[in-house]
């Protein structure tokens, strides 16, 4: 059964169904169809987890589907899908957040038909990035996600939404330009000449490896985002609608991290070693700068957006160490950051729906008295974000620090000090918004309704599950890492 094709394109089918079959004002039908398609996609991706073979580390990719697609002269493109321990967690993260993003959008009333179609197209684009093993296909999906995201921010956003949407688009497309140059150069510089990412990951690059690495890396670093290419992220987040922020922080940023590991490190290991110290420095700067800037944010969404910059710095830190534990930690950090930050954005969305403000000074204080469930969930997510043991963030960050400490003690210590800052801004924020003296103007507020509770509780369950039993993700990740380490020659 072509699982991956079905999983990847099911949301797109849903989008087309909504666009063609449903009436513009049938908001109810549209939501249910969107929820149905994204739920089935999620359930199917869970099936993969059970069918995935974790005991055979030599297996390059599973659920492989290959077919000739374009073949002209020396230019061969395949329809080539497959997942391994690196991409499967990302696929599950995407399908999970894709489904929850629909639930969290239940109150959308502006142009619902276009909204839910675009949300589903976006999901297909991201899933395609994680499942393709042909570089052409990979890049195609990488670009497909652009326009839906642009429109989602631009139409349903708030504040300076048009500016932010355009900024997002331009940053990403400039990154793609460099990436495409890298892809094409890699194709002709490698032996064999191929877009097959597995074969590239086993072959060698004749010349220009360092430059190719840089070209590709810029594309991924903008997406990650790495300081100093991060400025689009706070704008995009603060103006995007809730569900889009969830998708953006939850999975779109992971495309960058995934690309760095899958392509930069695996295909160009020597260049990766060459640049590792530089990346390490940039990662530490990202962690600390991101955290420092987060401290002073007054807008809740900007606060979480900057904390993302800091947390994605850990991903880069883990990768740049080029150690086994560091890589595992980086992948796990991507997964946990997706769930934790996704949840944080969801809760901020719930608060905003009720109070119509995201400014911390205006929100002060005592919201917990009127919305205990939201406050509790937000607290759990906050604690997970600051790395409290038994929640998923702790395991990932611990692994990253151990992995880095093996080789670069100073970087590990500096990076770990970011945790202190994180604890500072998270706890301070929780204290100001939810606790403290009750502000009478919030006496009419209500707590989360059923649909919203389903969404946030699901995320809490995942966060606790991964925190208590990280093996559910690590077993998958561990199958992919030996191959990468072998490429790095250790």
């Amino acid at each position: 059964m072509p699982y991956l094709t079905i999983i990847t394109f099911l949301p797109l089918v849903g989008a087309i169904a909504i666009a063609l079959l449903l009436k513009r004002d049938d908001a109810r039908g549209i939501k249910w169809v969107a929820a149905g398609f994204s739920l089935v996609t999620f359930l199917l991706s869970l099936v993969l987890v059970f069918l995935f073979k974790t005991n055979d580390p030599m297996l390059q990719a599973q659920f492989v589907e290959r077919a000739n697609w374009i073949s002209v002269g020396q230019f061969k493109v395949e329809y080539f899908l497959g997942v391994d321990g690196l991409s499967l967690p990302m696929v599950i993260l995407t399908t999970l957040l894709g489904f929850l993003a629909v639930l969290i959008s239940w109150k959308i009333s502006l142009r619902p038909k276009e909204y839910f179609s675009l949300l589903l197209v976006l999901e297909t684009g991201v899933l395609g990035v994680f499942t393709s093993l042909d570089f052409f296909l990979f890049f195609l999906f990488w670009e497909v996600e652009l326009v839906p995201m642009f429109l989602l921010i631009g139409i349903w956003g708030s504040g300076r939404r048009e500016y932010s949407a355009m900024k997002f688009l331009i940053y990403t497309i400039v990154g793609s330009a460099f990436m495409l140059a890298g892809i094409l150069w890699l194709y002709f510089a490698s032996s064999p000449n191929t877009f097959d990412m597995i074969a590239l990951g086993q072959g060698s690059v004749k010349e220009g490896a360092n430059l190719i690495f840089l070209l590709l890396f810029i594309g991924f670093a903008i997406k990650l985002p790495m300081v100093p290419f991060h400025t689009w992220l706070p704008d995009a987040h603060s103006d995007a609608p809730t569900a889009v922020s969830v998708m953006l922080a939850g999975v779109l940023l992971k495309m960058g991290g995934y690309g760095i590991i899958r392509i930069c490190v695996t295909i160009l290991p020597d260049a990766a070693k060459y640049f590792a110290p530089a990346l390490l420095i940039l990662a530490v700067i990202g962690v600390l700068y991101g955290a420092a800037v987060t401290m002073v944010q007054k807008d809740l969404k900007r606060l979480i957006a900057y904390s993302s910059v800091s947390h994605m710095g850990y991903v880069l830190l883990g990768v740049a160490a080029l150690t086994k534990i560091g890589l595992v930690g980086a992948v796990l950090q991507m997964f946990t950051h997706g769930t934790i930050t996704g949840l944080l954005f969801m809760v901020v969305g719930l608060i905003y729906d009720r109070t119509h403000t995201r400014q911390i000074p205006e929100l002060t204080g005592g919201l917990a008295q009127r919305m205990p469930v939201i406050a509790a969930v937000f607290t759990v997510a906050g604690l997970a974000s600051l790395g409290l043991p038994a929640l998923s963030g702790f395991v990932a960050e611990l692994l990253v620090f151990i992995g880095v400490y093996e080789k670069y003690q100073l970087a590990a210590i500096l990076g770990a000090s970011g945790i202190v800052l994180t604890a500072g801004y998270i706890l301070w924020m929780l204290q100001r918004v939810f606790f403290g003296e009750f502000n009478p103007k919030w006496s009419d507020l209500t707590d989360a309704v059923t649909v919203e509770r389903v969404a946030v509780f699901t995320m809490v369950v995942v966060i606790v599950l991964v925190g208590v039993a990280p093996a559910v993700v690590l077993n998958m990740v561990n199958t992919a890492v030996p191959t990468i380490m072998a490429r790095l020659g250790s």
Partner: protein
Amino acid sequence: MNLSLLGPEIVLGVIAVIIVLLDLVVQKKGILAAVGVAGVLIAALVNGWLPMEPAKYAFDKMLVSDSFTVLFNFAFLGIAGLVILSSVDYAKKFRRSQGEYYALVLLSTAGMMLMASTRELISIYIALELTSISLYVLAAFLRDGKSSEAGLKYMLLGALSSAVLLYGMALIFGLTGTTQLDQIASSITVAKAIGQSALILATVLLVAGFGFKIAMVPFQMWAPDVYEGAPTPITAFLSVGSKAAGFAVILRVFNISLGHEGFVDWQTIFAILAVLTMTIGNVVALVQSNVKRLLAYSSIAQAGYVLVGVVATSNSSQFAASGVIFFLLGYALTNLGAFIAIIAISEKTGNDEIAGYSGMARRAPGLALALAFCLISLTGIPPTVGFVGKFYLFSSAVEAGWVWLVIIGLINSAISAYYYVRVLKIMYLGAAPSEEGVKASAPVVTALGLSLVGVLIAGIYPGPLFQWVEAAARSLIG
């Protein structure tokens, strides 16, 4: 004499005359367009019978029929068909002389087809003039201030460029004693010995002459004014047909006659001009407020991308030649689609200001979506032919070792995203000034539908088109 090789052009000529005569008797001018489309279809049918492999020659090797010829003929006929369909409503503005309008479109198409199917300098020149003179008239067809200015400007500058071209051809003839492209190639070593500087001058003059036809910087000055003033279907025709024909000739002339062994360093000339063309086209497009001027600068930039591929063909690379051809076909399809959508929208809004497109996604969802896909394709974002074309074109240039040129091209394409997406933004994010719907007539919808389907199919499953393109490239660079 093998007259049959001239079949499609003869059909077009005959139909053109029939249309002019028919114009005198019929009252319903729609019939003229119908006859025009029928003529295009017949010509396409005849074209399908032309020999491809091995190539056949006629008129003392002035005319050649190979895969390259046949593919380009199909492209020009397709373009002409779509232009005629999209003119049906627009032509009502002309009141009189609708017959001449369609006839000139067909004659110009015949000229473009000849440009792609000849390997000899004099017939290239004649074909070019046939195309251009018809287009000068068509550009001025609205007979208002802007349109007349467009026609006059196009004619004056066009005549100048033709003279430059002719001068270059004369120099080549003087140096080699022949006008046949392949014979020029074989005697070029001698020519270089006789007068290297004359050969360089001739090359530069040829580049300038052809550069005008494809609106390459620094010969692009005419394009924005002419594109803005000309009737919109003719702008579409100019921006794709005339450009594709120009590139077809460039591919033939530079690859066959001037050779690849570095007799004259024409690839460096083109590389520099490609950078200028892309950059100036894109940067100036950023600040346009008129959609036709925007697309004029965008088409200058697109010509810059094609030049990147032309540079790469200098290593006898079939890969690069097919990259150029595929990109051109994709661009033609996409740009036509965009213009057809604009024709339909501007019909309602009354002018071509981008601001008028505000909220168009609400007023005309279908048209807006089609235009959005065309703009996405021009940007080079999947799942469209523009993406595949750009990917393939640039990969051939990387293969030929022009990485720096490709990086500049890609950065340019990122710049272009800004102004293409700006139109998209206005259509989807802007508020609609009125809720009044914008409807398009059946012929326009048909034309738009055809080009959109082409853009998407060739973007998702380009395999079959690639087979054709590859055969054409093989016959060009054997």
